[in-house]
């Protein structure tokens, strides 16, 4: 796959059950322990912020820094890896 030098992000989700690694060419989401690959995506992502997804409703965000501006993209969870339903919502 990618060269080691291309790693741009590593991070866990909130309960540390998943981890993500992002490179210049894509990212993958894995089960933390034992280590199992959940999801991979190829080219087209610049940078993954820390805690870019949560569980059980996994909603990844991605952002770039074109010039002085930042764009934050919201991706529906049902198109990624929806692992369940939220148990409670404060700001409903």
């Amino acid at each position: 796959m990618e060269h080691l030098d291309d790693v741009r992000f590593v991070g866990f989700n909130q309960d540390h059950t998943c981890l993500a690694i992002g490179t210049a060419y894509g990212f993958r989401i894995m089960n933390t322990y034992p280590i199992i690959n959940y999801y991979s995506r190829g080219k087209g992502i610049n940078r993954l912020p820390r805690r870019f997804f949560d569980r059980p409703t996994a909603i990844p965000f991605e952002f770039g820094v074109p010039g002085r501006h930042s764009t934050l993209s919201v991706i529906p969870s049902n198109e990624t890896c929806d692992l369940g339903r939220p148990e409670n919502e404060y700001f409903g």
Partner: protein
Amino acid sequence: MSISAELRFSTPVMSLRLRRDIFSVVLEDQIYTYRKSDLILNDIIPTLSNRKGLCCLNSTGTFPILAYLEKDKGTIAVKFYQDDTIRLIKAFEIFVAYMEMNQDGSLLACASVTGKQIRVFSTESKELLYTLHRGIDKAVIHCIAFHPTLDFLAVTSDRGTIHVYRTGESEGRKDGKSVKKMIAKYFVNQTSYAQFKLKNTRTICCFAKDNSTVILVTEEGEYLSINYSEPGECQLVERYNLLEIN
């Protein structure tokens, strides 16, 4: 995978914090909090200059608890959205370099720019519960992780040593409520229970739920699991390159 919405900011996004109902976008000197269901802006909070994007948001519990850098250096503000109250914790006299909250937001661990100590506070009472000693040399703290039961805490730094501290928090819990005062008297100062030496690379860490394993991931994409069941030197169990796992 399609994009359903985009939020644009005039300054770079430093970090993001998410929970089921809200998410917080951390800019260099402000935090924007949005409702996740309809992306309505819920809160704007001015902060100390925050190029590291330091911010914590509890992931469990009915109500959000947000910790961020107050404008006074060394002070962390904890906002309880349940009643819109803010508690100020004077963590250090110098700048805070790293902070992490446990999942329900009851505890806040932080390190200063010297990285010699980790201080753990109760977010509700603002009380200093533990002072954990990392070392006598200056260090940049890269990650602090709470064990799910709060019995242990792990710290990584640019010195290359991973420290595991035994805090015994769950021993003080009765009927789901923590009696932290009792623990604070007993564990007020301590050095690490177990250590693991790794090369000087940026490393993040977390605890596996088996009560004996810490997971380490380096910025080069290396994955390590180490066993800390015995005090002293941790044992390396697994080592993989994450980019090569199928």
